[in-house]
């Protein structure tokens, strides 16, 4: 049931300072602070400091906010959790100019939650760079009851909504930011294979 190289599975090319952009919005979670700092190092000096906004949350991971509060960087907005980062991002994007570039670094569920909210405000996905780091695990939606589990780290898990045992496919929806979970023992009820560690 493995699905090697499935085309809907997203990749994470990493962050690359884009000096041609007119506004820069950097958003990070946990270990993502390091990637944001590297991006800032590339921007400072070429981009005007008031065109740069930095939003950060430790989220469920470790707190590296001190990396970003260094004096040479623009003052970051630090939040306790994802929801607050998204609220802050919405504020920035509402009066963003054309030519805004977003840089998102964090765990996969974090990245896609941010992208989804940004898209709703008209950001094109092509203008959003992404780098995955920090906590592993996938957001998975149960195709049967539509319950989303936030950090699934094994190939098979029990759906918190309908309690079916689900196999985690590589099929990924960018619209929802989730992988698909499908009943694993439908053809042999009760025969649930041993879960294995999910590849990232």
């Amino acid at each position, binding site marked *: 049931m493995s*699905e090697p*190289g*499935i*085309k*809907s*599975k997203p990749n994470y090319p990493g962050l690359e300072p884009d000096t041609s952009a007119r506004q820069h919005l950097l958003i990070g979670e946990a270990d993502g602070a390091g990637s944001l700092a590297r991006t800032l190092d590339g921007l400072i000096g070429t981009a005007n400091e008031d065109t740069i906004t930095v939003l950060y949350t430790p989220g469920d991971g470790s707190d590296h906010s001190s990396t970003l509060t260094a004096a040479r960087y623009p003052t970051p907005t630090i939040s306790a959790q994802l929801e607050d980062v998204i609220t802050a991002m919405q504020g920035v994007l509402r009066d963003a100019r054309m030519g805004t570039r977003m840089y998102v670094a964090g765990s996969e569920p974090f990245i896609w939650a941010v992208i989804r909210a940004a898209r709703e405000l008209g950001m094109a996905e092509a203008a959003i760079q992404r780098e995955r780091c920090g906590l592993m695990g996938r957001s998975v*939606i149960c*195709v*049967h009851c*539509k319950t989303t589990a936030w950090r699934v780290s094994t190939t098979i898990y029990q759906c918190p909504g309908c309690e*079916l045992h689900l196999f985690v*496919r*590589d*099929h*990924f*929806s*960018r*619209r*929802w930011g989730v992988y*698909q979970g*499908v*009943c694993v023992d*439908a*053809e*042999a*009820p009760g025969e649930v294979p041993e879960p294995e560690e999910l590849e990232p």
Partner: protein
Amino acid sequence: MGNEASVAVPEVKPVETFRDDFTFANSPKAIRRFPFPFTEDSYMYSVNIEPHNGGPAGSPYAPAFDIDEHYLSEVEERRKVLAEDPSRCTVLEHMMPAQWDTLELLMESLSTDYPDYFVLTRDGDQWTWENRLLGIKDTFTFGDPDTLPYEPFEYITRQVQGDFTLHDQRDNMLYMDGGMLTCQADWSLQFDLGMNFYEWHGPVPRAHEMGVFERALKYLLNLRVGEPVRRLNWTMTVHPRMDTSPENYHKWGIDRATVTPENVGDYAHLRVELQSLYRLPRSNAVLFSIRCYLISLNELVTIPKWAKRMHRVIKTLPEDLADYKGFIGYRPMVVDYLAPFDDGAELTPGAAPE
């Protein structure tokens, strides 16, 4: 478009079921016109696209959208699925012009191909649609969704056999931006919504590497108004079950474990999709029609040439395709069932019954 003289006027049967007691069956006439997909003794993916400009008299290729003896049954099955899960029909907001395009195309095609059953009368933007098979007669204002009981796409696709998807074209790409999906071969519209052509085909083995999707997409991007194209796709399904959705897989998956050498002729069905693609005139969107036909092995072997060819194709189908199509488990039983019908004789080329 099909021309009137060659389109069969179906004798529509009373409602049969595609679930629970499975009363669905094909008449001898329906068997003979079944869109058998195999033109050779083996099968592999290819860019099998051809113009959809009619076909042999009485065949499912003759009309634009085929209406057959199962019409009432399929409309009823769709109603049941939607009553349980209304999200099986979802269209993204920006596709409203494509919804009206779809309604117009389907109403024009059906009333041209089946004038005894469907009548469209237009007086400016005041349209009257009469569907005699369902006893519907509605007058509405074209372009004003509030004058119909459903949004235009759902309104008309509830009255037509087969699934439909709607695709916006932007930046040389097609997107899954809507659909009516109640008889799908194991894929989810809700999950695939918004995906691009490569993403929604993500799970298909081999075809990406073979360049099939790249060439197919190029072809579709250049699709022109009034020049629809078609292709056949196929899989196998246990029982005549239309709703083999992933949403309900936990309910129907078990069927695959119930096939035995004794019941395989009755249980195992060849499931063929006659897919046609239309460029829509106002919206520039693409309408994808997925018309599903089911035939049990018992019915299929009444056509000797098909029995032989089916045996050869199923026996030699590569493992990864049989696995993807979901019948790898009971494939040996299908092959054993068909083997006695195959004397190894050379077959005439093409998919026709003889």
